[in-house]
């Protein structure tokens, strides 16, 4: 009798489980049949009255039924959970093609980018970065650089003076003397000095009354034009990321002797002058307290705008100072 009842219960529950479609219903069903006060428990409560030889048989059958029912309920539960999750996920679907929350990345000015790159390259060659005042004494800007009064470069048309002896520096070479004064007679000295410079030019596509230069300065025991060339070649290759054909030409700067200009062969624009340089004039070394017989050095001056214009193919120097966002934002990736 008990046997039949057990089997009937098994069939009844199995059918019911297949018909259920809600999780809650399934859970109620589980309690109703398998819970502490459920039907299966109630049925087994009558086992005490059975003959003792029947007890193990019925016991094992009952376990079998319980196991079976537990398994199908669990399976069903899992199945229902899955489909509930599925429909929940479907409801949560969003349009992944809508734009993301705007977390914009800004940009550094291309002159900053170029300056940082120049600094990094020279740093890699053992240089440190020095700074000097932008408003400078005539002495440091001209006189101490072998540009005496009445030299053509001192024309009032060329410089912005604020007092007869004070002007906006016309080149970063003005930091040469200041640095040397501070460091002499220390060697090795490897310094670069980036900064703004000012000349009395009318702004047009290739002229700007304000622009940016970088000065490099080396003083040591064994520095010759050979090392100057080596340093410049290394620099140029790294800053342009490609090997341009280069041309080294004699030139004239009052504060270097011999002086040297460097051109690169631009694929579209032919030979372009890229920087000026030379061996530090012995008078300058002596002026700050280096024995020019023992120590030599070289100095390099370059325009950051010019390098940026070549590097990024920018056609007009005024772009740098107009700050059009259509221009600036192109350097987000810079």
């Amino acid at each position, binding site marked *: 009798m008990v046997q039949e009842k057990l089997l009937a219960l098994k069939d009844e529950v199995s059918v019911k489980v297949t018909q259920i479609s809600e999780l809650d219903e399934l859970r109620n069903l589980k309690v109703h049949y398998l819970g502490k006060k459920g039907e299966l428990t109630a049925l087994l409560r009558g086992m005490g009255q059975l003959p003792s030889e029947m007890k193990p048989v019925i016991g094992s059958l009952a376990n079998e039924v319980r196991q079976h029912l537990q398994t199908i309920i669990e399976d069903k539960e899992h199945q229902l959970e899955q489909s509930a999750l599925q429909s929940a996920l479907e409801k949560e679907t969003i349009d992944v093609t*809508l734009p993301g*929350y*705007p*977390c*914009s*990345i*800004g940009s*550094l*000015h291309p002159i*900053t980018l170029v300056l940082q790159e120049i*600094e990094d390259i020279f*740093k890699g*060659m*053992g*240089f*440190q*970065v020095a700074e000097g005042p*932008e*408003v400078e004494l005539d002495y440091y800007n001209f006189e101490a650089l072998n540009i005496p009064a009445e030299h*053509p470069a001192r024309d*009032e048309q060329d410089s*912005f*003076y*604020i*007092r007869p002896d*004070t002007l*906006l520096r016309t080149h970063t070479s003005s930091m040469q003397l200041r640095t040397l004064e501070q460091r002499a007679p220390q*060697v*090795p000295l490897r310094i670069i000095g980036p900064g*703004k410079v*000012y000349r009395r030019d009318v702004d047009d596509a290739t002229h700007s009354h*304000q622009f940016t230069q970088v000065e490099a300065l*080396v003083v040591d025991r*064994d520095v*010759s*034009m*050979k*090392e100057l*060339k080596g340093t*410049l070649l*290394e620099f140029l290759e790294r800053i342009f990321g490609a090997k341009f054909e280069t*041309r080294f*030409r*004699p*030139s*004239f700067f009052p504060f270097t*002797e*011999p002086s*040297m200009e460097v051109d690169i062969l631009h694929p579209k624009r032919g030979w372009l002058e890229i920087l000026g340089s030379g*061996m530090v*004039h*012995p008078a300058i070394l002596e002026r700050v307290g280096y024995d020019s017989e023992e120590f*030599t050095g070289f100095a390099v001056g370059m325009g950051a705008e010019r390098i940026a214009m070549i590097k990024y193919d920018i056609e007009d120097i005024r772009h*740098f*100072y107009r*700050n*059009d*966002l*259509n221009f600036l*934002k192109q350097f987000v990736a810079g």
Partner: protein
Amino acid sequence: MLVSYEWLSEYVNIEGIAPEEIASALTCSGIEASIKREATSLAGIVVGQILSAKKHPSADRLNLCVVNVGADEPLEIVCGASNVAPSVKVAVATLGTTMPGGLKIKKAKLRGVESCGMICSEAELGLTGFASNASEGILLLDHSAQIGSNVSDYFGLTDTVIELELTANRTDCLSLIGIAYEVAAIFDREVKIPIAPPACIVDKAKRVEFTDKCLAYAVQKISKLNIEPSPRWMQNRLTAMGIRPINNVVDVTNYVMLETGQPLHAFDYSKININTLEVREAIAQERIVTLDGVERACPKGAILIADSAQPLAVAGVMGGLNSAVTEETTTILLEAGLFHPAQVRRTSRQLGLRSESSSRFEKGLNGEVLPYALARAASLYKELSPTSVADAVRVFKAYAAPKKILTLRNQRVQKIMGVRLSDDEVIDIFRRLRFGIEQAKEGTYAVEVPNRRPDISLEVDLIEEIARLYGYSRIPSQMLTGTQPVGMYTKEQKWLREIRAALRYLGMNETLTYTLTSQDEKRLTRYPKSQPINISLPMSNEYAVLRTTLLPSLLEVARYNVRRGQTDLALFEMSTLYLEHATAEPLPQEVRELAGLIAAREATLWSAELPQPQPFYLLKGILEALFSRLGLTGVRFQKHEPAADWHPGRTAQITLGEKSLGLVGELHPALAKEYSLPATALFHVDLGLLLASIPERVNYTKVSKYPKVTRDIALVVDKKIPAGDLEEGIYRSAGELLEKATLFDVYWGAQIDADKKGVAYALNYRAHDRTLTDDEVDIANNKVIEYLRKQFGAALRS
């Protein structure tokens, strides 16, 4: 400096060396050179003589010309120009010629008459500026032009013109002879000087001492001259080198100047008194009418050529009209002087007069050539005007040529160049340069520098000569050797990069604006008491002062971009400001500022659920992120007293301890309107102070392994109480168990009195050594509530 290749070949043997080769070699040895004018042949265009010209039978404005071009038969050519006349010589494009403009000359019928060629104008030949008799209509050639010869020969167009960009030190190359020496040195060729140095009479007559500003002075009298146009060859050479031919007297002075570098001046001998001739400084109120017909006051210190009667010329700048050569002149006094370069420069500037000669004198010339230049001019006059008679060169003030002998050491050459040269190599370079050189002992030389090279005065200058002739390209390259210093940035330099990077990653775009601004741009400054420093002679009002504030420049950038339809402006700049020192310091004070703005935020978010930040809070958030990046703790934003140009209700002072770091706020709507900007948030910060405030290192505190306990408190307070004050009160009263207080709600409106607001904070409590009990937390939390109640009248919201 323009150089005629053909003319240059008179002074140096350049046979077999093409102009391009010369230009490139000059460039590589220190004088940038390029081809200015290529040789052209004008094939098919020949000199013709008009035999007859009559009106075209059926067109009044056309002429029917019969032209002899040296062929068997004269040509009949129809011409529209009005200046055709029998016997004039013209340029004729014969049939089959292709004109410089591309036009092909073919037999054509003009109003029924056949035309066999074209009589050309200057423009048709592409020769504008070439002919001295330039006029309307066709080009008229000199009578000397040879019929049938090619017009390009006539104009010297087969010549190539090279342009040199001379550096300031190479005054020697302001002359063809100087360039010839340079070319000769490069190619190891011979130099040819047209005449030998003349014998001179040193004038010992007692005369007034010349001013010291006259370094040398010589004259030469030339009589029986006929003033007429120079021959074609001379005109062509002058034209090629950029000088307009005038007449034989003037042309010869220019010719000699181009050859020798020495400017010459010709006085009409009859209008001056040579016996009282002197060179002196201008005296007060002295006036002179210069060649251009303008009466000028001679500046103080100007050097004048004068006789006892009157000033005759402003030395080195311009001659006087009173002694000028005219059509009637037959006798001239040629002058060659050497004047103090700086004085010539000053005078020419003061008079606003710059001439070919002043620009030469101010660079400094070689006084040695004076007698040669005069004698050379005399020889040319003789050639052009065979009847002319030249007296001897008279030297009034002799040039004291300094003898420059420099010691050169081979070991020094190596030290500078990095290349070891043999004695022979060194000696050979100076032989090519025509410098005197003697080997004193092994590796040491005595080098005599010729006077034409005033730029060379030191051993190192000689080394440059060696290097440039050796060739910079041949010097090997090598990395720096010896003790390798460590390349590094200072802390400040690193932080400057970090600040830029942080702002950039927070969405800001860096700008670069001009230091010089207009006088008006002193608004929004941190230094209202500082008057901007003026530029002495500003180019324009736009760039008249050194700025004392960055924000107006940024607002200009914003205006520019908004006008061009840009939205979402987020700009920053780090730059220097310039302040006048209170005390007499030699240089102005340079202070650094960091400034930025956010404007024209576009509501680009597509859903109302996404928050739309206000510019002020957005910018404040960016600054807070920046300060946290820099490790700055204790930065406070406090309501700022209304300041000009800032929104009175939306501006905060940023403080760090007792110091004011800067301001962040909204632009005053009135100013925003002036700049045509929508609501704009902006800030400025003392960058120097910011950098100085960055802690040395990260301040690590041990991470607690015990759990936090969170208590939320919701309060109702007076609307005017700043949230920042409440937050400070929380930290002050909670004790050390409070880890963090976070504002999570601010509310006003329904359910709350109109003058009140609701605020809610989440307070996190945590200890480092234990799990907190509820009692402990309650005690701390009640302290906070009690304090806020007492201090701010805050009531717990039920």
